[in-house]
Every structure is written in C-alpha cells, then in structure tokens.
C-alpha cells in the first residue's frame, strides 16, 4: 500500500462494462516530506505523478488514503476488472517518526 492525498474525482460517461458505476479518485502520492508533516497538514502535491484510483470505500477530496497498485488491485472482484490501483484504506491516524541517524 502507498499513501496519497485525494485531489479530485473522475466520472466516466462511457466505460468498459466492468467499470460501470465505479467511483474513481485522482490521487497524488505522499512524498517523504509530507509523511513527516503528518496527515493534518495542509494538503499539497507530492513529487511523484498523480494517478487514478478505483474507490469502493468512499474517499473524498483532501482525504489521505492508502491505495494498492498492481495486479492485486483487481483481486477483490469475482471478475477481474481492468484496474491497477484501488483504494483500500481511509487513513484516520498516522504515527510517523523518521530515522535521523
């Protein structure tokens, strides 16, 4: 799982049948510096490219989410849809203590 900030939503008027009714979020991955600032810090853009994440647990804009990338993203479904990123956790709290040594 990686953490990212939700910066928007996408809706599809025309899509592959398997994706009908799905929710999609635009997510910018959290950079190491943003981890250090914590999840209550002002949302900002990370350094890595943003991505679209399939969402079935209800993430909203400015939420910090944990998303999984790769073939595993399609794993929860009976028929594997063509997705490669899925929202799997809405982060409530984060305890982060970077190593300084």
């Amino acid at each position: 799982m990686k953490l990212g900030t939700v910066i928007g939503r996408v809706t599809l008027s025309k899509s592959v049948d398997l994706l009908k009714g799905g929710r999609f979020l635009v997510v910018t991955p959290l950079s190491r510096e943003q981890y250090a600032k914590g999840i209550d810090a002002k949302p900002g853009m990370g350094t890595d490219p943003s991505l679209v994440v399939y969402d079935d647990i209800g993430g909203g804009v400015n939420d910090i989410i944990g998303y999984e990338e790769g073939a595993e993203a399609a794993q929860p479904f009976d028929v594997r849809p063509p997705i490669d990123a899925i929202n799997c956790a809405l982060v409530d709290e984060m305890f982060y203590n970077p190593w300084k040594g």
Partner: protein
Amino acid sequence: MLLARVEGNIVATRKHPSLDAWRLVICQPIGKGGESEGTPVIAIDSHGAGMHQQVVISSDGIAARKAIGVDKSPVRWLVVGIVDEHEPGKRI
C-alpha cells in the same frame, strides 16, 4: 524484496475488510548504508517489527494473501523478516 526501516504505523477504520486486525507499518526502503531510498510503503506485519527496526519487505501479493488467509484481498506488501545483521554493515 526490499530492505526497509520501520518508521511508524497507520490507523484506518474504513478499510478493506481483509485488513481488519492487521498491523499496518510504514516501511521506508533503505540502501546498504541505511540511507532512505524512495517513498515509504505500508506493509502488513505479523512479526511485530519495532520502531526503526530494519526489515525485509516483499511485494508478493500471493504470499501476502496467503498470510492473511483471504483470497480476495488487494494486499501486496508484507514484512517477511526482521533484519539481524547484514553485510557490509554492522549488527543492528
């Protein structure tokens, strides 16, 4: 598999049901000298890795699903071991 250092954990109420009761640790991938490389990843941990301990994490989704015992889980990263020592380097 990556060498990583545990730098914290996250708490999520709303999550995929397969992750219930699993410890989710923030793992920072590191180089041979212990320097950070890249952005942190969240892994499931069944070994009880402590803060700033060095671990080996694997992105093998099949093994991770086996570990949690749910076939329809999106989980991918898991802590496969806690590092005792590595070379070059010193005992941790």
